[in-house]
């Protein structure tokens, strides 16, 4: 029983990270229909920036977040404004392949800069505390708390600010939004900036417990896809539920199936993806936009 509860806790903590990791992917897809295959690579970029700041200025990754996000916002803004906005009228293959190209470029730029050796951020407070016989690793709990805070922040931003409303309007009906005077291209670029900043933030907060190397991105992209399909496009509560589901499923398999460890994460997310897409192609929750499965 205790083992089960501990696995559940670990799954929930992992799920919280997955939920914040998926936000950028999910909102980008929900608002402008761009499936960002470079998602994992942007996360990797954030993690490397956190490593760089930790190594040179010994800045804690949970603090350097504040510096990383604006930088990555600019990167996302530029990517959307000068590349993806040109491709939006084209078939979805074009954006898919363009982001695929970006992922290749980002991974190899980092390989050239940092070499392929794995890096890690060794924060000084890596222990765990116990509550009722269950152990909570400090770093993972901190990641979970920050993830929830970021999610709440994004939710409030989308729900109550003028810009957030404009973004939601652009997602619901592009032409109507244009008619009421929303500069769609600009809104798209800002949205992409926010999404990439969030993704990089996820990379920064995971850096203390994840080996950082240039080709770490792909599993994150694939998991983000599965979670988004589970939770609905651009849905923040959906991202939370989907992330929790995948996190718990992964930890449960790692705990109870011997000799496998956490390497099966991609396999599990593929199985979940195929089952969900076949049984319930519209996703478990309805999102900002309907998924077009046919």
């Amino acid at each position: 029983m205790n083992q089960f509860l501990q696995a559940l806790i670990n799954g929930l903590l992992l799920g919280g990270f997955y939920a914040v990791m998926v936000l950028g992917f999910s909102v980008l897809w929900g608002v402008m229909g761009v499936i960002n295959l470079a998602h994992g690579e942007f996360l990797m970029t954030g993690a490397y920036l956190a490593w760089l700041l930790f190594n040179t200025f010994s800045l804690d990754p949970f603090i350097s977040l504040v510096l990383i996000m604006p930088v990555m916002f600019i990167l996302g803004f530029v990517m959307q404004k000068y590349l993806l906005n040109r491709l939006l009228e084209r078939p979805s293959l074009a954006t898919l392949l363009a982001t695929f190209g970006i992922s290749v470029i980002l991974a190899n730029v980092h390989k050239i800069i940092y070499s392929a050796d794995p890096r890690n951020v060794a924060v000084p407070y890596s222990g765990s505390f116990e509550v009722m016989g269950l152990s909570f690793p400090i770093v993972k709990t901190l990641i979970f708390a920050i993830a929830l805070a970021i999610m709440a922040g994004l939710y409030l931003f989308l729900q109550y600010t003028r810009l957030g409303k404009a973004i939601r309007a652009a997602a619901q009906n592009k032409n109507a939004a244009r008619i009421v005077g929303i500069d769609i291209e600009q809104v798209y670029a800002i949205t992409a900036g926010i999404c990439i900043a969030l993704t990089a933030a996820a990379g920064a907060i995971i850096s203390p417990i994840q080996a950082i190397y240039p080709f770490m991105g792909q599993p994150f992209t694939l998991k983000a896809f599965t979670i988004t399909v589970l939770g609905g496009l651009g849905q923040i509560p959906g991202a939370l539920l989907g992330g929790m589901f995948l996190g718990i499923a992964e930890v449960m398999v790692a705990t109870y199936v011997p000799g496998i460890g956490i390497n099966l994460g991609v396999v599990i997310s593929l199985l979940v993806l195929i089952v969900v897409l076949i049984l319930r192609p519209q996703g478990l929750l309805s999102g900002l936009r309907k998924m077009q499965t046919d």
Partner: protein
Amino acid sequence: MKKFSRIWLRKWGAFPLWGLLILLLSAYPSTGASGIELFTATQIFLWVTLASNWNLIGGMTGYLDFGHGVFFGIGAYTMGILVTNTSLAFAPNLSFWQALPWTGLIAVIFALLIGWATLRLKGPYFSIAMLSTFAATRELIRILRPVTGGGSGLDLPPVLNRVGDYYFMLVLMAIVVSLIGWIRRSKLGLSLVAIREDEIGAEMRGINTTFHKLFAFAVAAFFTGICGAFWAWQNTYIDPDVVFLQNRNILMIMMCMLGGLGTVWGPVIGALILYLLQDSLWSNLADYHLLSLGILLILIILFIPYGILGTLKNNKISLLDLLSRRGFDTPHR
């Protein structure tokens, strides 16, 4: 009669030229070409075959397979397991020719199983499901250590026969490109294009879309599996990372994009150009060669989305029109 022969020439005229090219190429080893030249030519044939296979499912049927390398990997691993005699749980120690049919067969079985699930997904969902399949299969192969050797890989019998390799790939390429050219001109190919243009419309017209999609998928998987098996034999060593190489997926797609999606000769031209380009990039600036390929991919999407053949066609340049009228059709939308 004159009109008939012109139609015939338009429809089939490219085939005698293709046959002539194959004949000329088959004389190449006897001109005293060095081993490394034969190796390069063999690699080009391999890539032409791979790109043409991808084109069958990605270009003609419009199902953009982002993980087509999975069949390459399945073929390579089937070959590896069947021909090695190391202390694995299952080591039949067959010869190359005995093992070869199995590699294609296993790839087809895998394609039917995975296609049954993934081919009902549309658009980007299919693409990403296949990318997931690719990554998931790599992980499974890594875990199934008793059968596949796990992360440390398998050593195949070291056999060096550059001339034999050359002829094997030449024949395979000739078969695959001709087969795809024939499929494109047959009713089957028209059905595939109909599925690409409007799947529901095609279904209403009475085309069994599931069968056609699975058929195209299985054919592409069969020959990709054979290519993988050949590659494993030629390379004499396989492990999950060299076999399930992400770059291979990207290159297959880029070759088709560069030449022209959905055309018969586009992948041939695209593979030739891109292979030579990446070969020279690799030898001149090794670290930057993947980076340059990524940039090239984005440039292709931005500036020649219809590929070389598609762009020529759109500009009504009819020089190549003579070769194959049917080769040019509206690229995938």
